[in-house]
């Protein structure tokens, strides 16, 4: 049986057993979830939340095999802070620098004892709605390892923790990186997830990262999608927030043959708040699809969401932002803005804000725009002798600088800015 594109159900080869090095409670979970995947329908263009993206999904039989972890890491962006390397979905302690900080546990799933593994098995997927994030179910059936972080109450990680998730695609296959963060009362940390790749064979990167925030916890999450154009990336991030917790998310993604990120945030107790910033840039025939959901479950919660896309050439960028205000979530404040910049007539942008409001005393605003570069601004810049290509790049960067400037880790901010600048400049090669 050969199923390549738009197959109606998941190829049975994807059901291969995983996690043989993991504690038994996690192996049990993987096996259960694997069984549930039999005949799992794959998204098609009739699947509402995949209708613009299903045609980019190209799963081949060979991609079902897990890429082996060679336990060595390729080049990553090196920044000041703690770092953990996840190579083909497996934590590599030799390449990592686990901080030894009071009140903070950082362990690979493989190193958890049975009791901790059992607790984790009960919690995995609790932050995600697996009906809306179908492909996260594949990760929960296939992860080989994962990174578990527990911050005890009041624990503060002063420096950011970089998690370098490398896909080593020297053969065709798939990887399933997994991260779970449990942030205790009033704890704080900044986690930078860096997805990158080496090798040139076709590969599927299927990620899930989850954050559980207790009262007053404060997590900043930076997620960089930097993989090569041989990889398809389907990632999900979930966060659940209790009273007065704060979740700041900064996602920056470069296009690829398939790029999908689902971000789901649940504000479950009064005073919880989130800020979700996202930037995606695409060129050539690349794709990028950001789907976000903010659930205002409890009253007196705030959400602020700003996503920007820049699509050049014949590329395709998608934003779907859902805000769901439950009936008891009075006094909710929700702001969502999605702005898009089209750099060519052949590029496509699809944007869809979705608001579902069941409470009657809320402040909720949303806006979506699609535009082109401002000709009068371009004329002003070139009239000062600035090269046309550089002027176009400056104006495109101006569209996203405001979001990049909010990334709280300076080294990441500068690197991301330089990469975006280079990427955008390439798209004006003909100008």
């Amino acid at each position, binding site marked *: 049986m050969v199923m390549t594109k738009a197959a109606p159900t998941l190829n049975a080869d994807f059901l291969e057993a995983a996690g043989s090095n993991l504690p038994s409670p996690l192996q049990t979970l993987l096996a259960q979830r694997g069984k549930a995947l039999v005949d799992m329908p794959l998204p098609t263009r009739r699947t509402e939340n995949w209708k613009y993206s299903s045609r980019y999904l190209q799963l081949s039989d060979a991609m079902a095999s897990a890429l082996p972890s060679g336990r060595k890491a390729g080049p990553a962006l090196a920044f000041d802070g703690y770092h953990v390397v996840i190579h083909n979905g497996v934590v590599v302690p030799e390449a990592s620098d686990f901080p030894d900080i009071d009140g903070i546990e950082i362990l690979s799933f493989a190193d958890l004892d049975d009791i901790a593994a059992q607790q984790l098995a009960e919690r995995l997927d609790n932050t995600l709605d697996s009906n809306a994030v179908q492909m996260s179910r594949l990760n929960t059936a296939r992860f080989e390892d994962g990174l578990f972080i527990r911050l005890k109450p009041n624990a503060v990680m002063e420096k950011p923790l970089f998690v370098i998730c490398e896909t080593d695609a020297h053969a065709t296959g798939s990887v399933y990186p997994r991260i779970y963060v449990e942030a205790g009362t009033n704890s704080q940390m900044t986690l930078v997830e860096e997805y990158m790749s080496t090798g040139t064979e076709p590969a599927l990167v299927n990620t899930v990262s989850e954050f559980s925030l207790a009262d007053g916890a404060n997590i900043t999450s930076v997620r960089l999608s930097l993989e090569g154009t041989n990889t398809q990336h389907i990632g999900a991030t979930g966060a659940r927030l209790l009273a007065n917790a704060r979740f700041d998310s900064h996602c920056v993604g470069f296009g690829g043959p398939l790029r999908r990120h689902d971000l789901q945030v649940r504000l479950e107790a009064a005073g919880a708040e989130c800020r979700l910033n996202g930037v995606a840039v695409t060129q050539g025939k690349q794709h990028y699809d950001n789907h976000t959901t903010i659930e205002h479950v409890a009253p007196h919660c705030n959400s602020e969401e700003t996503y920007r896309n820049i699509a050049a050439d014949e590329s395709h960028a998608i934003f779907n932002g859902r805000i769901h205000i439950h009936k008891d979530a009075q006094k909710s404040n929700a702001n969502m803005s999605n702005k898009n910049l089209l750099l060519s007539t052949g590029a496509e942008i699809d944007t869809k804000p979705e608001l579902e409001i069941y409470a009657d005393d809320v402040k909720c605003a949303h806006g979506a725009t699609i535009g082109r570069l*401002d000709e*009068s*601004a371009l*004329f*002003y*810049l*070139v*009239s*000062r*002798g*600035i*090269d*046309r290509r*550089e*002027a176009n790049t*400056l*104006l495109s*960067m*101006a*569209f*996203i*600088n*405001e979001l990049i400037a909010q990334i709280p880790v300076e080294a990441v901010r500068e690197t991301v800015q330089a990469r975006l600048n280079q990427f955008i400049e390439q798209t004006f090669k003909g100008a």
Partner: protein
Amino acid sequence: MLSIRNLHASVEGKEILKGINLDIKPGEVHAIMGPNGSGKSTLSAILAGNEAYEVTDGEVLLDGNNLLELATEERAREGIFLAFQYPVEIPGVSNMQFLRTAVNAMRTHRGKEELSAVEFMKLAKETSKQVDLDPEFLKRGVNEGFSGGEKKRNEIMQALMLEPRIAILDETDSGLDIDALKVVSDGVNALRSPERAVLMVTHYQRLLNHIVPDYVHVLAGGKIVKSGGRELALELEERGYGWLGIKDEVEAS
């Protein structure tokens, strides 16, 4: 240096310039005056390379070379500078980034080394003081949230930093109070040099009290109908345009 010969131009099929002839030599300051709608701003826009206007006849030579064949950025590097009547705001691009990119583009073209960040900041701070702008403005977006007067001062600051061969000032005096007019005029006077020419386009004579021109031309109905020395401007102020057979506000478009 700059020769405009029989220049005809139209926008959206409507002829605005109907045969302009003008010669400007290094060191000279020319003023073009005229009623609204006479084509003054069209002339400056065409010199800078605005593609909204179509040149239908005639030529413009810069040092004997065809200026109209050059793209806007090439004209700028050859020394054409237009101070805009309505400078655009560009949020997200800082004045510092913009000015440094422009200064270095010019320097590279002139075979000079690019300025380092430190050298640039020193120059930018000095020049901003010359036009009475708080150097803090460098961190803000280009013209973002600037008052009308600040925008005009920023234009003059750019001219001072980019060292053009010919600075064209399009209604630079409009919307300025008397203090701002003084600052802008001082800036323009600082630009004057034996190698550089200035072309001022203005509706009012008051700017010419501060920047004394060598030549004054009256543009009306798309043509230069009278040229003279600085005394012509004073005569226009006293007598209006009527004695030249022009109604003020002719052909307003």
